[in-house]
Each structure stands twice: as C-alpha cells, then as structure tokens.
C-alpha cells in the first residue's frame, strides 16, 4: 500500500519533470538576453581569465564559494560533534586487509605525484579546467591512499586545523581588503595581467589557492574522523 502511494507520486513527479524539461529542449539557446554573454565578455576583457567557470566561481559569484567553503567547514565541525567518542588513538586503527609490500611501495611512490598534481590543478585553475575544489580533492585522495595503506600513518590534527583556519582567514581577508580599498567585498585589488599568463586575473589565483588548501585540509579531516571511528 505504502509502496503504491510512493510509486504513484513518483510517477506524477517524473511526468511533470519530463514534461518541463522536454519542453525546455536540449542543445539550444534558451534565452535571449541572459547574463551568460556578460559573464563571458567580462571574464575575457576585464578579468583576463581564460577559464570562465573559474572567474564565475571565484569572482562574479565568489560569495557562493565562500558559503560553500563554510558548508565544508560546518560538515567537518558537525562530524566531530556527532561522532563524539570512541575515537581510536593514532596508529591503533584497524585495517581490513594488511597492505602488501607492492601496495606500500606503490603508495609511497604515488603520493608525492598525487599531491603535485593537486597543486598543479589549483594553481592553474584560471587557465585550464580545474581549480581549488578539484585540486583540494585530489590532494585529499592522496592522503586517503596513505591512510588506507599504512596502518599507523597519521595526519596531525592540529596541523589540519592550522591549514584550514589560515586558508579561510586568507580568503576572507582578501575579501575585506577589497572592501576597504575598493568599496566592495572580494573586489579585485591586483593588476590583472595578460590573458593566458600564470599571473593573470588578479586575486582570483590567490583565492583559489586558499580554497585549495582549505578544501584539502577539510576533506582530509573528514575522512580522518570517519576512518578513526571504532566499530
């Protein structure tokens, strides 16, 4: 009975969703005077940033990114409050299978290059696909590999907090510098440089690096907290 009600309501929902989106159409220009062209041209002419998604995420809609970083911060804070006790001590973590020697050496070999790749991705966020979130996540997966492979590998919790807090403070202080010198939060205060240069886009690169560090620290912290739960 309950399943029947759920199926019927899902059917109604699906019907309306398909109706809406088939009507909207795929691969066509939907609107005539939206903000899309403004974003593209402003990103090219004023900010000199090649990757438009980056310029939207960091500058045009930078407030969203601030909120997003806060969501991750909140998630790791709430996680610590929810899983309140029975934490393993460092190095006492149980592993499903002990890693073989090949996996251990491979992980040791891969770890620096994963971190390097992550750093590359967030430093070049304004030139090529990628950026702070992607790079930060890649670095976090590197730490994840080490945590899974080595039984007694541990990340200093205090050091994670330092990185997290300092990166967050850097983000907001860049915003406040913009507010106090130009009159608007997160406004660009540095010269924008030339298109396709590493030093282009003014503060965008710096903010994305801060975001990268923050995301990496937060995701590593989340994984570390969950992994150290006693079952």
């Amino acid at each position, binding site marked *: 009975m309950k399943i029947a009600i759920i199926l019927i309501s899902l059917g109604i929902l699906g019907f309306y969703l398909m109706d809406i989106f088939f009507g909207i159409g795929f691969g066509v220009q*939907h609107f005539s005077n*939206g903000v899309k062209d403004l974003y593209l041209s*402003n990103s090219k002419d004023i900010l000199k940033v090649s990757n438009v998604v980056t310029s939207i995420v960091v500058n045009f809609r930078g407030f969203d990114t601030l909120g997003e970083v806060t969501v991750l911060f909140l998630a790791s804070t709430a996680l610590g409050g929810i899983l*309140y006790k029975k934490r393993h001590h460092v190095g006492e973590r149980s592993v499903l299978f002990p890693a073989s020697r090949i996996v251990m050496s491979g992980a040791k070999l891969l770890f620096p290059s994963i971190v390097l790749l992550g750093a590359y991705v967030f430093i070049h966020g304004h030139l090529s696909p990628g950026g702070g979130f992607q790079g930060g996540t890649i670095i976090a997966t590197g730490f994840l590999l080490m945590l899974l492979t080595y039984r007694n590998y541990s990340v200093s919790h205090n050091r994670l907090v330092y990185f997290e807090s300092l990166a967050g403070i850097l983000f907001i202080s860049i915003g406040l510098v913009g507010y106090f010198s130009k009159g608007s939060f997160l406004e660009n205060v540095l010269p924008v440089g030339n298109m396709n240069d590493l030093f282009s886009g003014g503060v965008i690169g710096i903010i994305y690096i801060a975001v990268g560090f923050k995301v990496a620290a937060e995701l590593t912290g989340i994984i570390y907290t969950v992994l150290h739960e006693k079952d």
Partner: protein
Amino acid sequence: MVGSPVLFVAIPLLAAFIIPLTGMIWKNSVRIIPGLVLAFMFALSISLMGYVSEHGTIVEVIAGWKPPIGINLVFSPFTGFLTMLMTFLGFMVWLYSYKFKRNVDFEPSMKYFILLMLLVTGSVGIVLTGDIFNMFVFIEIVSISGYGLTSFYTRRDSAEAAFKFLFMGAIASTFLLIAIMIIYSQLGTLNIADIAEKMPLMDNKLKVLSLVFFILAIGVEAEIFPLNGWAPDVYTQAPGPIGAAFAGIVVKAAIYASVRLVYTMYDFGGAFDLFIIIGLITFIVAETTALRQDRLKRMLAYSSIGQMGLVMIAFGIGTKEGVYAALFLMFNHAIIKSLLFFSGSYLVFNKKNKYIKHVNGMGKYLPITSVLFTIGSFAIIGLPPFSGFWSKLAVLTAAADSKMVILIAVILIISILEAVYYLRVVNRIYFFDKKEKTETQKPSINALIAMICLGIIVLVIGFYPDLISGYLDRAATDLMDKGNYIKEVLTINK
C-alpha cells in the same frame, strides 16, 4: 553609513575560521567570541536600520559587479527588520546557553557555539541576499548546522531526529535546485530583481510548476503542513535553546524566502490563495495535534507550527494590513516562543521524556521561571495586556477589511483550542501538587537575564504597541512595493 550589510556574513565567517586557532590557546574563547560576534551583528543591524530609515534601502554589491552579474545584498526596511529580530534572538540564545549544563565533556561543546553562530549567519544571509542560488547556499548552511545542533545531545533519539531532518532537507535541496534551474533556463538570470522584471516573459505553466517546486523545497524549513514531520522531533531532541533558535530564527528566514518569492518574484495572484490554503491547513492540523500532546516540547513545537500557519494566512491576505499583521505576528512569535522554550526547558529539566505532568507544582520551586512561562503562555494565546493580543487583533482586522468572514471564525475557534492547552499547563504549574521527589535545576544567572529580557519585551510591547508599529509599517510598505525593489537593485550606480 556605519558598516555595511556584507559584514553580517564576513565577520561571523572570519570568526568561525579564527575560533579553532584561538581555542587551542584559550579554551574559553570558543564560547566568548561567538557571543561578541552576535552582539556585533545586532549592533550593526541597529545602526544600519537607523541609516535606512533616513536614506532608504542599501544595496551592497559583491566583487564590484552590478546586480544582474554579481550577487547583491539588500538591506531594506523589511529585511533589516527581520535581521534585527534574528540577530537579537541569536544573541539571547547565546546568552541563555552560555553555561547550559550538559553531561558530556567539553570538546563537543566548543562546536556548539560555532554551529549556533553559523546558524544565525545563514539565516541572516537568506534574508539579505538578492540572488536565488546564493539563497540555496545559505539554506544549506542553515540546514547543516541544524543537523549538527540537533544531534548534539548524545542521547539515542537525537541522532534519529537529526537523520529525519537531514532526509527531508536533502530532498528539499534537490527540489530547490530544480526550481532554480527551471527559472534559469527560461530567463537566463539568477538575480531576484532581474527575475521579477523578466517574469512576464515566462511560460505560464512553467511559472506555476517552478513555484510548486520552490514551495515544496522551502516548505520543509518553513514547517508547512505535510512537510513538517521533522519539526516536533527536532524540537524535542535538540538542546532547549536550539528549539528557540529554530522557532525564532530559521523558520522566520524560510518564511521570508517564500514571501519574497510570492510577493516579489512571481506576478500572479493565485499564489496568495495558495498561501491562505496552506496556512489554514497547517494552522488547523497543527493546533489540533498540539491539543493531544502529552510532552511539553512537542506541544510547543506543534504550537509553533500552528503560529507559522497563522503567519502564512496573514501574508496570504495580500493587503498592506495583512503584511503588517504578519510581520507583527512574526515578531511576537519569535520573542514569545523563545521565552516559552527557554523557561520550559528549565521547568522539565533533566526529566526523561519531558511530559507535561512534570511541571506539576513547579510554581513553588521555580517561581521566576514559572511566572515567565505564564507570561509567555498568556501572550501567545492573545490575552489583552500582553503583546500577542495586538498581533492577533491586527490579523483579525486585516481579515475583516478584506471581507474574509470564514477566516475570522476559524482563527477565533482555533485560538480557543490554543488557550485550552496552554492554560492546562499553567494550571498544572500552580494548582497541582508535585508528586515524585525529583531534583529541580535553578536557572543560571545568564539564562535568567535572557528570559527576563524577553519577558520585559513582551510586557512593554503589550502596553506600548506603538513602539514597534513604525518599523512594521515601513517594512510592510517596503514589501508591498515591488517596483521599488526592482528599481533599487537594478539601477544601483556603483
């Protein structure tokens, strides 16, 4: 101008990132800094309100891009009024819970204040922002801090209540994304003022469907009837002050969001009728359910849902008097329900299931708390010398002006039910004898100060309702004037 709306978001986030560092050096700073920040936000809102009442709406752009491109924050008489109310309540909740006793070690309790501060920040962000996707981000901030705060007690049921809340919140956030994308795909913009201006271009069917998705999504936080299954459990299981924070801050922000959608973004009148229908159903169902509850906090939760229904009805009347009444009701409900939650948690302190029968004879043991609870009960029923009377009168007058006779009858009948269950509790406090010998907890001094502050506000507004009517009047005018909002936002010269 002293300060700027962007500081409402920037300063708390800066503080939230600094607190883990200072907490390593000085443990007490994790409690004190959030309080200072909340006090700062309240002071800032007062100073900006003074500016706004003289010079008109402040529109603050982010990153130096004019509104259709960038995100903007709008501090108008309406949003400013709500911001002032929310930050004041946030500060009161902080003051009340500064020494709130709990039986777990200190380490999680430092997270409590960070989560509380960000809960208030997110709600203020929902109210101030002028961009629907930014509103989504703030709603997620509020939700996640809500999940953390709900499961804060280490009892087993609190995690379940939080999971329930999370389940509904996660589904709601996907609906919100769908609604945002429908609007974006048709109009190519995310700015509320810009959408409001271009709304006539949109197909009528899509307009209705996107509004339905919006209401489904925001209704979860706004406790609209079929979507409020989480609310009673969360109010029961969360720490006492958090119940007040939900009823006074989060729900107000969600109501604001739906009102902003219907009054500013959408341009068809049927939405007002939808508001009245939803509000009536919520009001009737919640108040009749509240009558049957045997646990104090569940009763307060259902009463809170019912009051939100009344607010929706008042907004649905659609005239300026209706908006005035709804805002007055929101103000009163925020203050009174916080007072009831604050004093109620001490009346049933440390009891296992917080049944209403636990308050028996508390009038002798906790005289001040009991008096404050009684004041709150009388005020929320709408007895004449208290503030609740004026707001209920305003609702009835607004309904009478619009010739909605059935509405008046329903509100009056349901109000009698409300009186029955509140007076039942008050009766138990004073005229029943305490049966079992259980220890009672005297409120700590900071909690007492917070409660007395709220009680004084209830009494003062009750005797001098004119103190606040100026603010309410300006806020109502501001909300009704849609063209002015669009003009203020889109023609900012920065």
